[in-house]
């Protein structure tokens, strides 16, 4: 099973939500407050990650996705991302 790096996930988030490269994204970055990502953008972000990483988000996981760190944590549980 392919595992991905944090940089790959950040790159995907940046592309899906059209975040300029000048905006720093770390695990502490919050989608709504820091990136101004609304719920529709977040759907796009999560769908693109789902397709890229071949994961199936559960409802509880989606509900808890408030920050990039939450995505990392969930992907670690799915064994789809290298542990930092």
């Amino acid at each position, binding site marked *: 099973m392919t595992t991905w790096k944090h940089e790959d996930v950040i790159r995907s988030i940046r592309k899906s939500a059209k975040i300029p490269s000048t905006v720093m994204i770390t695990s502490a970055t919050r989608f709504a407050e820091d990136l101004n990502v609304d*719920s*529709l953008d*977040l759907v796009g972000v999560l*769908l693109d990650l789902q397709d890229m990483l071949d994961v199936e988000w559960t409802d509880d996981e989606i509900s808890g996705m408030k920050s990039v760190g939450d995505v990392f944590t969930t992907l670690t549980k799915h064994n789809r991302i290298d542990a930092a």
Partner: protein
Amino acid sequence: MRRHGMNFRKWIMKRFVIPVLRQLPLDKAHSASERIGHIEFRLLPSYRNHLIAAVRQARLYFDAQWDDRDTARNLAGRLTRWRIRDILLDDDDTKAVLSSFEVRGRENLDEALALNKGVVLVSNHFGGHILPAHWMLRSGIDFRFLTERPRHISQFLNRYFQADGPNPQREIFISRKNSGNEGVTQLFRSIRCLKSRLVLLVACDVRWDDNQSVAASFLGNRWKFTPIWAILAQRSGAPVVPVICSMMDDGRHLLEFFPPEHVAPESDLSVLVQDSLDRIEQRVKCDPCNSNDYFFWGLDESQESLLLRATSPDNQEIQPNQQSSPSLTQPHFNQVSIQTRTVNAS
């Protein structure tokens, strides 16, 4: 719409009238319910005047030749029938229920289903908006409603709404009280339904106020509408099939499925929503008596209604665009048609 003693009338209907209507054949029961509406129209002056005012406003907007009083009387009949919702279809006799529908364009739905991507069945509140559910369930077409949970419906539909299984309906219902990531979760559940090749029934004329809402014009006013049906089509690649269920004069229902369309991922949501509303508007102009709810939107000055209003970009009075308004039989989405895509794929 104003209440006009609505609760008392509802009680009378539920307690005394509906049990009697249930004893009649479906078409006669529906026709009888319309006659009750005609009697109310004759006996209740404030109700009558309210309907006439609503019809007059719509007539002026369309520059139509309707007789306000006759149209309002017929609308009163349809309103009573509409308020009964699907209660009279609460019948175990599937054949009798199916025969109360005249279906046109079934092949359009079948064509969309054959693509195996699920189907976004785009409905509206024109005519009998809950009734397509009965036809589909009793025809063996599994579907989910993406809507707020409807109240005062048949036991038949209630049982379906409470059923277990994959993607259960009770988890698909949406709420205006949703907050945070609940809306995101809801969209994911809906996309899962489409990936499971289900039909997802979504109305395109739902006024909604959230950060995804788009402003669009309808019957001379600008409102905020949810574009959720278009978002789902964009994100899932599922074909869109518009459907209309009209109440016919003979007590039966006309269920029309229109040719499937593909919504391109990059399409402008505002344009898609406006196009879908323009189609309904054209239908309303041709058949005002099936416009059960729409004519009262503009007369509603409640706080709830005011929150759903959107301002016109140039504060101009909105007029129906006779030149560009599409016909329901002439889909005008600018994307590649499903038929073309299918041919290309093969």
